[in-house]
């Protein structure tokens, strides 16, 4: 998906046929064909034309990234088409305008193609009455339990009730009762009474994921979303159904009952769990992260993200986070003192005596500063690849979020990790006397405790403790991506910003901050004090980033050629 989407950036758009239609009297020109959920060009629909005209059509089942179902009927609109005379030519009024034949029947905007001269009436009393009718039908069997519903605040039933709802129900019959708190799978709960049977969840898992796990059992008003008894809804994308569910039927076990959504602050960022870099929103309140939700970026992840990435935030709040900067002696414990002592050790180092194991979990800006540090010290650098399982959808086998950045900045060896053997040999032979490690436990990658014990200086920067930080003479506590700003370059060369959502614990600081200070202490030259300045300096200096500006990255990033010059 992301590959195809990325390719789009470079292909010139083919010329498009256009259609002129009217939406509520407003002329709008739309392409004759528009991409469907799979990107295939199909006739542009009314709902797309309305969107182009800035007219919002309420809907439940329609989702631009899913096959069209047309079942909720909320998007019904009235419309007309130009009247044709016996000669098949449009009939005109005396003033030259086209005579419009109003269709006696409404049409669902989500599935009905537009045609030249069509007029869409999206806000007539008739259309509003139809929406009221649909909403009433959706609510008669609904439990109306908003006060205890997790969807409250981001519920489409609530939202449209403001415009089309009635203050009192005329329904006096017994409601249909359906299963509550159905355990669909390890991460998803279902309340069938809240479900409006829009089938978004079914279509998503069947058509997008390829896991035909959900279905509808029973018939008519008794229709119920279900898995096959004993089968769990358990693929790596299940939590997207919670986002897709327009009502409170599908909820995340991780998030439900934890926080009312309207208290959450949403911060735009990027998932650091693999090389794809899905765009996300960090939902936080009072310095605690409650959830990640995907943020639509057609060039990367569309509106989706994987469950693993979505739930990969708990470690940020772990109690054993590294909170204190530490120097070689117990009395050295403020950042100023630690960095001063470290600078004192590094400044006289001879070329080749320092090696740096950086990390493709660091941001471009941080790796840029490490690059400068390595250049000053004459240090060899590398990163450690972390490979796992990938899939054909969003998950990349590369579990580092910034492998491309580390490569483009010249931090990684070719291939990444190839220098580690040389580092081991250098330490063993006494040539390498100082090793600086970022966000890794090198004891698991051939640089065991015995080897590390031979070093004069071992510096470890990390967010969580490990064997390397335990052995280190200097510990520099860093930040989770959610605690700092910066940028990652994803596996396809898309440079995307991450944004700080919460404060780091204790004295932990963004790596770019203390790296800049350390560099200044060693070189007597100030590094830019802001991420913007740092990024722009990097873009001017490093060929792979030429032409980029921080501001231009925007919320959705910019794709760079992975092999500059080609």
């Amino acid at each position, binding site marked *: 998906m992301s590959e195809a989407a990325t390719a789009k950036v470079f292909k010139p758009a083919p010329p498009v046929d256009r259609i002129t239609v009217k939406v509520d009297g407003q002329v709008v020109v739309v392409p004759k064909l528009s991409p469907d959920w799979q990107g295939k060009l199909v006739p542009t629909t009314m709902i797309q034309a309305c969107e182009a005209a800035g007219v919002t059509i309420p809907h439940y089942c329609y989702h631009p990234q899913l096959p069209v179902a047309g079942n909720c009927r909320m998007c019904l609109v009235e419309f007309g088409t130009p009247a044709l005379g016996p000669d098949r030519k449009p009939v005109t009024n005396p003033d030259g305008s086209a005579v419009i034949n109003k269709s006696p029947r409404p049409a669902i905007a989500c599935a009905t193609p537009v045609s030249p001269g069509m007029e869409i009436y999206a806000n007539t009393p008739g259309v509003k009455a139809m929406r009221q009718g649909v909403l009433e039908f959706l609510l008669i069997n609904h439990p109306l339990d908003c006060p205890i519903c997790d969807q409250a605040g981001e519920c489409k039933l609530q939202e449209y009730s403001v415009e089309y709802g009635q203050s009192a129900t005329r329904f006096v019959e017994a409601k*249909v009762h359906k299963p509550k708190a159905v355990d669909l799978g390890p991460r998803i709960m279902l309340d069938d009474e809240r479900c409006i049977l829009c089938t978004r969840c079914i279509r998503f898992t069947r058509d997008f994921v390829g896991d035909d796990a959900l279905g509808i059992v029973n018939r008519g008003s008794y229709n119920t979303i279900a898995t096959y008894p004993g089968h769990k809804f358990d693929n790596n994308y299940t939590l997207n159904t919670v986002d897709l569910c327009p009502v409170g039927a599908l909820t995340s076990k991780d998030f439900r009952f934890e926080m009312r959504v309207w208290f959450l602050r949403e911060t735009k960022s990027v998932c650091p769990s693999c090389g794809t870099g899905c765009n996300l929103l960090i939902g936080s309140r009072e310095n605690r992260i409650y959830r990640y939700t995907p943020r639509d970026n057609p060039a990367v992840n569309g509106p989706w993200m994987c469950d693993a990435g979505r739930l990969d935030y708990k470690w940020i709040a772990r109690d054993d986070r590294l909170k204190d900067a530490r120097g070689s002696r117990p009395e050295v414990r403020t950042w100023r003192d630690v960095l001063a002592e470290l600078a004192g050790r590094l400044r006289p180092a001879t070329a080749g005596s320092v090696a740096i194991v950086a990390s493709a979990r660091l941001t471009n800006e941080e790796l840029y500063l490490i690059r400068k540090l390595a250049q000053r010290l004459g240090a060899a650098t590398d990163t450690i690849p972390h490979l796992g399982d990938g899939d054909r959808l969003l998950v990349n086998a590369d579990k580092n979020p910034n492998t491309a950045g580390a490569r483009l900045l010249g931090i990684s060896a070719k291939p990444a990790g190839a220098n580690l053997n040389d580092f081991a040999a250098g330490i063993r032979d006494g040539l390498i006397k100082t090793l600086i490690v970022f966000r890794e436990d090198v004891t698991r990658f051939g640089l065991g405790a015995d080897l590390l014990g031979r070093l004069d200086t071992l510096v470890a920067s990390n967010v969580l403790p490990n064997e390397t930080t335990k052995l280190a003479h200097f510990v520099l506590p860093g930040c989770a991506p959610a605690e700092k700003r910066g940028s990652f370059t994803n596996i396809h060369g898309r440079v995307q910003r991450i944004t700080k959502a919460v404060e780091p614990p204790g004295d932990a600081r963004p790596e770019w901050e203390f790296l800049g200070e350390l560099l200044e202490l060693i070189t007597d030259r100030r590094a830019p004090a802001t991420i913007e300045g740092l990024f722009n300096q990097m873009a001017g200096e490093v060929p792979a980033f030429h032409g980029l500006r921080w501001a231009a990255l925007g919320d959705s990033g910019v794709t760079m050629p992975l092999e500059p010059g080609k």
Partner: protein
Amino acid sequence: MPAVEHRLILKHADTPGYTPDLACYQRHGGYDVLKKALALAPKTTPDGKTLSPQEQLRQEVTTSGLRGRGGAGFSCGMKWSLVDRKSGKPIYLVCNADESEPGTFKDRQIIYKDPHQLLEGMIISSFANDVRLAYIYIRGEFVEGAKILNRAIAEARAAGFLGRNILAAGFDLEIHVHRGAGAYICGEETGLIESLEGKRPYPRIKPPYFPAVLGLYQCPTIVNNVETLCHVKHIVAMGGAEYAKLGTPNNTGTRIVCLSGQVQRPGYFEVEVGKATLREIIFDPAFGGGLRDGRKLKTIIPGGVSSKVFKAGEKVKLKGRGPDGKETVNELDVLDLPYDFTSLMAAGSMSGSGAVIVLDDSTDIVAALANISTFFAHESCGQCTPCREGSLWMSKALDRLTHGGGRAQDADYLAKIADNIPGGRTICAFGEACSWPVQSFVGKFKDEFAAKGAADQARRQNNGQAATKT
């Protein structure tokens, strides 16, 4: 001139000694029309075009004016003309034998008594449309009907009317019987297609899924009713123009009318379309023979339970043209309506599947509508909102009303629910089917609904006062 039966489709079905086997069918001229169709040569028209045998057959059907006998009355020739013949994909023919509109039992007669007639109609229709694989979707409850059709298919195959190189004409065709399992919605052609694909029979949205273009397996597909396909045989036998002389203009041919309810002689009658009035069908001794036990007519459901009811004594206005070509408006008693597609539609209802249900003056009209609404609530597939929720809502309200829980406002309450369902708000015509009866029953018998609700309400109040006193 009094109406008489004109048996074309059911010509032999009820003849004593007539059996559903191939030998009997062939003794009565069976498969001769297929032979004629397969022997057609390309024909050159006066304007120099060459028409293939298939094109000639399709043209005959268009000329005949045949309208579908399943319920909608859509032109069969038009339906065939919409088939996408350039897609390169196979074209499928599906015979809709799901006969499930309450009141209808005509296809049963054909299938059980004269199955080869249906097969011959299907083989000719398949040939005319370049179909190589066809299905008969038969309702699951016709257990014996499916067996009869399977036997007939085996016989036809053995005799060279089905299979490879039929009658050495280079035409291949297989027909398979597919059984439903008790779902009215499978009579809707796209629901039927989904069911035939092994899915829940959820009707498809149109656009884009018009069967003629994107039908079975997303291939062009023709879905025709049993009776319709039988007519094709007779059209080819007689010639379209000759066939069109039967019946009345725009309502050609014969059709089987199913009469049930409180009449002396319920049953099926094949008549020329529009040549019998509702009065004749219900009261003529040769047809329904009038009501039972000296009862009076109260209501006519003219085209299956989904059609809007007529009230006895109701006057309807029909537009026509006088001898001078000027438009005329003819007001007549509903009983004097010719039983055809056009007149019933003009009168605000429909002839649907040809099912006339008669209710006499002993009928509890509220209970009758409750019965119909229970059916629709049970049969709604539940795919789209207004029908899923509305059908059960109406049924529950009517159930309450028939069990003493009525309220004075229930007539309006029902009408308002019903008004939010039809008119294109739903994916398929089931939305109309479930709401039209409610709209028309409540609309035409509002006093009875209101009286029932008010009586219930008054009784509850009295009981409440009585309870307070004690």
